[in-house]
């Protein structure tokens, strides 16, 4: 089973999302947590690359982190799935390698 990539940094502050997208294989999934959830917002500078990545990877975002930061689900890029912490744990059981892009 493939890799779950976890990104916890804003795509505007750090290079971690870029590196994740460069090194994630087509069968891998991506989970955005903490400040990583800013990548989920639509109509922003990073939206195009995230939209494009959705063609290759399932992308998830941690709902508690979105809510904390005031990002309305209506402003999320379509196709990104929201998970709570229970869903986060479930993802880590479904993918057998976990790669946190610290």
């Amino acid at each position, binding site marked *: 089973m493939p890799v779950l990539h*976890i990104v*916890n940094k804003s795509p505007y502050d750090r290079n971690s999302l870029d590196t994740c997208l460069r090194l994630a294989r087509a069968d891998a999934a991506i989970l955005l*947590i*903490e*400040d990583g959830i800013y990548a989920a917002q639509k109509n922003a500078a990073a939206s195009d690359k995230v939209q494009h990545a959705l063609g290759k990877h399932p992308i998830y975002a941690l709902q*508690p982190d979105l809510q904390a930061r005031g990002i309305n689900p209506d402003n999320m890029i379509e196709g990104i799935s929201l998970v*709570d*912490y*229970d869903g*986060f*744990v*479930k993802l*880590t*059981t479904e993918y*057998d390698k*976990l790669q*946190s892009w*610290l």
Partner: protein
Amino acid sequence: MKFGILVNEGPYTHQASDSAYYFAAAALRAGHEIVRVFFYHDGVNNGTRLGVPPQDDRNISARWAELAKDNDVELILCVAAAQRRGMLDADEARRAGKDADNMAPGFQISGLGQLIDAGIQADRLIVFGD
């Protein structure tokens, strides 16, 4: 399923310790086992018993200790990282000739081998950090 958790950052400054805590709680809720939470780098600072957070804020160290007690989870602070940063239990303090220690009950100090061992024992090792 068996989980190992690595926490690289201290309490309050980075969200890493909070995220790890909520992940751990959710994993236990789902019936999974947590073989060990290993605290490395500034993560060792989660093990202090001297924290006095504001009344309206969470107590991160106390919360970890409670989770561990209720669910029989090992909380391990890396000894080398802890010594460097002044996080000591009574034994370490005595050995180093220090007049005080600051580690909270529920945490233990041990070697980096415990991190590798967590990787070997667990079905999934997940890392939270900066």
